[in-house]
């Protein structure tokens, strides 16, 4: 079997990212939509870590690190909002959120 190169990691990252995209587009349930965004972030993290590793540069890892931090805060705030919304409307379905209609 051949050696694992950077391209492998990048392609894996792409595949995961696309899976995330599918989720983002497909999901109507807000909570599950959050899951999809987590996938997106993780996919990017892999790419960062891989590049960091293959070029011997710490910057990539740093970014991955910050992304994880951001993901954590996003979940905190996002879930908070979700709870609030659920309490107001009793639904967390995206299709019911149309107050931003132009």
């Amino acid at each position, binding site marked *: 079997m051949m050696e694992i190169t950077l391209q492998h990691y990048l392609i894996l990252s792409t595949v995961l990212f696309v899976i995330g*995209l599918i989720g*983002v*587009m497909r999901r*109507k349930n807000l909570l599950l939509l959050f899951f999809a965004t987590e996938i997106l972030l993780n996919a990017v993290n892999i790419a960062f870590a891989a590049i960091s590793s293959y070029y011997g540069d710490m910057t990539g890892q740093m970014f991955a690190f910050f992304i994880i931090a951001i993901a954590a805060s996003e979940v905190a705030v996002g879930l908070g909002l979700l709870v609030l919304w659920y309490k107001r409307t009793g639904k967390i379905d*995206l*299709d019911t*959120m*149309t*107050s*931003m*209609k*132009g």
Partner: protein
Amino acid sequence: MELYLYTALFAPIVGSLFAALFGMSKKNIIAGLVPSALLFVSWLASLKLLIYILGGGEEVHVELMTWMATGDLYVPYGFIVDQVSVTMMMVVTTVSTVVHVYSIGYMDHDKGFNRFFAWLSAFVFSMMVLVMSDNFLGLFIGWEGVGVCSWGLIGFWYHKETATWAANEAFIMNRIADLAMLIGIFLVYWNTGSIQYHEAFAAMPALDTSVLTAMGIFLFIGAMGKSAQFPLHTWLADAMEGPTPVSALIHAATMVTAGVYLVVRANPLYDLIPDVGLFIASLGAFVAMFAATMALVNRDMKRIIAYSTLSQLGYMFVAAGLGAYWVALFHLMAHAFFKALLFLGAGNVMHAMHDELDPFKMGDLKTSMKWTWIFMTLASVALAGIYPLAGFFSKDLILEVSFVEHHYILYTVLLLTAGLTAFYSFRLVALIFHGDDRHTENGVHPHEAYNFMLYAMLPLAILAVVAGMIFKTPYYEMVTQVLPAVEYHIHNHTTFWIMTIGTQLFVIASIVYAYKKYAKAVKVDKKVESGLLYQLLYNQYFIPQFYEEYFTKTYRELSEMMWKLDMKVVDATVDGVANVFHGTGKATHEMQNGNLSTMLRWMVIGTVVLLALAAAFTFGQSEGVVKMLSGLGAI
């Protein structure tokens, strides 16, 4: 002499402004008297200048101030009194003084009395500027000035639709010619570097003939408009809507002769281009005949005289075109006197007949209006060219000129026209003053005009009689100092006498025929009147209708169309562009349906597009793209 020059020039405008002060108030006799007095002063000053010039004085040349100066162009307000302009000045001031005095009586009951004198004196001023200017642009000032005054005076009775229409027609037709005149001036400027007469004329012999021809033609087109030559002639007959003194002054004696004056003034130019001169002469002869035929059958007293004027202008152009400038100017002068007299007489008749213009509704006025009858008959005799009145000396001279210059066709045409002239003139006199009384049945009781009006006409009557006899020699001596001195003599004495007597007999025969036909009871010959020729002449060759149908109407319709085009195409295009944006907004408005899911999908599409762009740039980083991007400042 400068003082006299300025007096002659500016006295009329002072009079005009004085009368204008009263312009909106009630009739004030002083508004008529002061301009008349000032015109008399102007006449005296002109006389003084004439005597000075006659006495062999140098021409008076002054520059008042700069008008325009830019680049190489330098236009001053320069005035010149030489032999030619002093002749014109005398003609203008004489006739206009007479007409002013006459108008005090004529406009007596008009509520626009004061306004009338303001316009009339302003006209005289413009005319003086026209004849005294020492450059083409100064001439153009006067040229346009008389145009405006003519507009104001033709449309003087502005409540009448026909009057205002005629005023606009006159102005616009003159404008068409003025454009050509302007182009002529441009040509003169760019080719000779100056628009001063003497500099420009001095530079002309060195120029190419084609340029000179263009210059000559354009300037002549300008002259055609003002002198109402075919095909720009229709306005003159319509201009008779104005008060009769106006017709006498503007549309007979002075303004319409400005075209002749221009050709005379530009004689160094036209001498260089004899072909154009021949064209001018031919057109003149054509107009002489053409206008005379229209006068034959017309039923409007003033129009008949107007056509007669047109015809005589044709004579003048024949002379001017053939290089006999002094003859043209001489006929201009003589014609001014007797034609003004004729018009003023017609004015008397109109007053007496309560503005009736149809001579077929008059008749037998000689009993009640003896002096008018005498004056008009005198003027008509002079017009017909019977010895020893003014017309004989000037008009016969033109016939001789054409004969001597071997233009026999022109000669024949002019000779025939002379007969026609005699016929229609006396047809008019006979219809008005002789025959049976046809006006009492209409409840009109004619009376003679005020005495002072008749006295005012007297100088013109005297001049119409003696101008030819007395003035010819001194005039010739004087004018030929600046104009080409060509004596026109038929060398063969027998021929000369045959021609002269023959012409006289022909003319007298025409007069007798006119009297015979119209001096008794008038029989209307239905058969003749329904004939094609009569209809053609009566309707002025259908030219006014033709203009109305094909020019006026077309222009109006075209304008309407243009407006529609402006709204429906040009503006609609602009609005269309706006609508594209608006429509795009409306169409993409759907995107913003507020559904987060849809938005997410759009977001993904956006991401994909951006990615595609990135990919495209990644793979397309060839030299060209890089260059383009760097040019745009993107990299």
